[in-house]
């Protein structure tokens, strides 16, 4: 009998799609808990509504394709949970439903369902909602405002620090406020501490490889330091760029999608670096306040190139190793 010494954990289980998606659902649950704390029961109701729409679309597409997809892999639930977290707490249910319908019926099902989609469904759905509903998606209620579950709200909506950065100003919130999410912004993208904890959880569980988000955030940080948008400049600019908008949220949950990102480690690093550069380009020269999802969709279309380049480099390395031996 051959004994192999390995570090803990000693119980190895095969990673399944359901397991990966389950980890994402658990992480998103933490974000919904914070959103409920800040904005009341409307946040989880929005999430449930979005999940219902996405699940219904998945079931319908499964029926049309005669059982070609497995609806129990939780992918529709993850997409449904992601969408409202990128939007204000006072967003209408119709907006969330529209984004969910687009995500499932246009970005996912026509390409073959889970595992075959080219574009991240949540990013596509949010981008379509931005194109359709424009500026109303970038006005946020104050953090302590408990939005009513039904009917219109009387919240005084304000722009997020991302808008201030876009205008060349410096956000007037201190670091503590930004860490705990005490400023107007997307429901799931303001609480930096919880997002960092989610990232650590997903990396520890093996759902997300650390190389891609790390290379992505590092690239954004370097470019923010070299080409600051705010008058503060330097490390403050880095902090503001990383903490505002959907950058952290997108870097963890959207960029970490195993289907729409490259497979090899070196390709992931290259992808993360390029994605960071493209996002900063969009932030500097784009029309919208939040351009991360558009940049991500563009990168999704180029994943095949990163995969091909990665395979070429890997085969060159293998050939050289064989020659050496």
């Amino acid at each position: 009998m051959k004994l192999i010494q390995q570090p803990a954990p000693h119980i190895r289980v095969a990673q399944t799609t359901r397991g990966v998606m389950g980890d994402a659902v658990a992480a998103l649950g933490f974000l919904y808990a914070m959103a409920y704390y800040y904005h009341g029961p409307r946040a989880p109701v929005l999430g449930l509504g979005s999940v219902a729409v996405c699940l219904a679309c998945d079931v319908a597409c499964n029926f049309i394709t005669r059982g070609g997809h497995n609806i129990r892999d939780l992918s529709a639930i993850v997409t449904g949970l992601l969408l409202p977290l990128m939007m204000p707490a006072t967003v209408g249910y119709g907006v969330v439903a529209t984004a969910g319908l687009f995500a499932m019926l246009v970005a996912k099902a026509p390409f073959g369902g889970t595992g075959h989609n080219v574009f991240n469904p949540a990013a596509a759905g949010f981008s379509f909602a931005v194109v359709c509903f424009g500026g109303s998606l970038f006005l946020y209620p104050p953090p302590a405002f408990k939005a009513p579950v039904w009917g219109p709200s009387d919240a005084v909506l304000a722009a997020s620090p991302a808008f201030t950065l876009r205008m060349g100003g410096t956000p007037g919130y201190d670091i503590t406020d930004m860490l705990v999410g005490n400023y107007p912004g997307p429901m799931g993208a303001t609480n930096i501490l919880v997002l960092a904890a989610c990232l650590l959880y997903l990396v520890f569980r093996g759902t997300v490889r650390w190389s891609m988000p790390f290379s992505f955030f590092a690239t954004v940080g370097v470019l923010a330091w070299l080409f600051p948008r705010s008058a503060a400049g330097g490390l403050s600019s880095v902090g503001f760029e990383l903490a505002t908008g959907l950058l952290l949220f997108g870097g963890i949950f959207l960029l970490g999608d195993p289907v729409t990102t490259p497979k090899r480690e070196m390709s992931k690093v290259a992808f993360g670096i390029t994605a960071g550069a493209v996002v900063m380009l969009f932030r500097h020269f784009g029309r919208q306040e939040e351009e991360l999802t558009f940049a991500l969709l563009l990168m999704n279309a180029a994943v095949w190139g990163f995969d091909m380049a990665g395979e070429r480099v890997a085969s060159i390395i293998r050939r050289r190793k064989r020659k050496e031996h």
Partner: protein
Amino acid sequence: MTSVNCLSTGVAVVKLELAKMRRYRRGGRTLRRLLLGGNPALVIGLNLPFLVVASVSLRAAAAVTLELLLVHMGTLAVMLTVRRAQGGAVRLATQVAVSTLLTVWARLLVIRLFGSAAGTLGMFLYLMAVNGMTLTGGAAIGARHKPGRVLVGGLLQVGGFALAIALLALAREYAGYNTLWGVPLPATFRLSGVTAPFFGLILAGFLLGAGRFAGKAVAGARMRERARREARFLVVRDERHG
């Protein structure tokens, strides 16, 4: 002798009937193919930019379709007379010159009829001079092609384009502007993103998918019906032979 004559007459009648049925089926197949299964815009991809850009409203769609009809049919009619001209370059130059002249005239007519809806199409009204359907249709005319068939084929192609653009324009104008032919209609939502060009391509893809799905369903039903009929016939033959 009489029975042989009857048999040969019967066989001749059956052959004539079968020939008629084949012609009917071929004609029906051609119509179905050009409008649905072989739709020039959706399936073959001709004039896709016009389909995507002009399908934001029914009036713009009608303007583009009318211009296409005039340019395409006029060019085909002229090319039928010069199909024996020497050299492909001479034919191509003639075709482009003719379609350009027709485009200039058709554009003025279309703007007069449809007003601002046609005006919003901008340079696409000029680009009709070199649209894919006319270029390929004119170049494909051979010496042996019958003029009637060429013209009918051209009409069917424009009909296929009209069907595709009408369906797209119907959906996009209602969802994007809550109007139909410029008339406001009640609606609970408005999705301005539907009027973006990328959504036109998405809708065209869905239309193509729906057409294929419907085509397969119809073909499947017809095959099942034919099999049922043939099975019945075989059963009858078995009974006759005891």
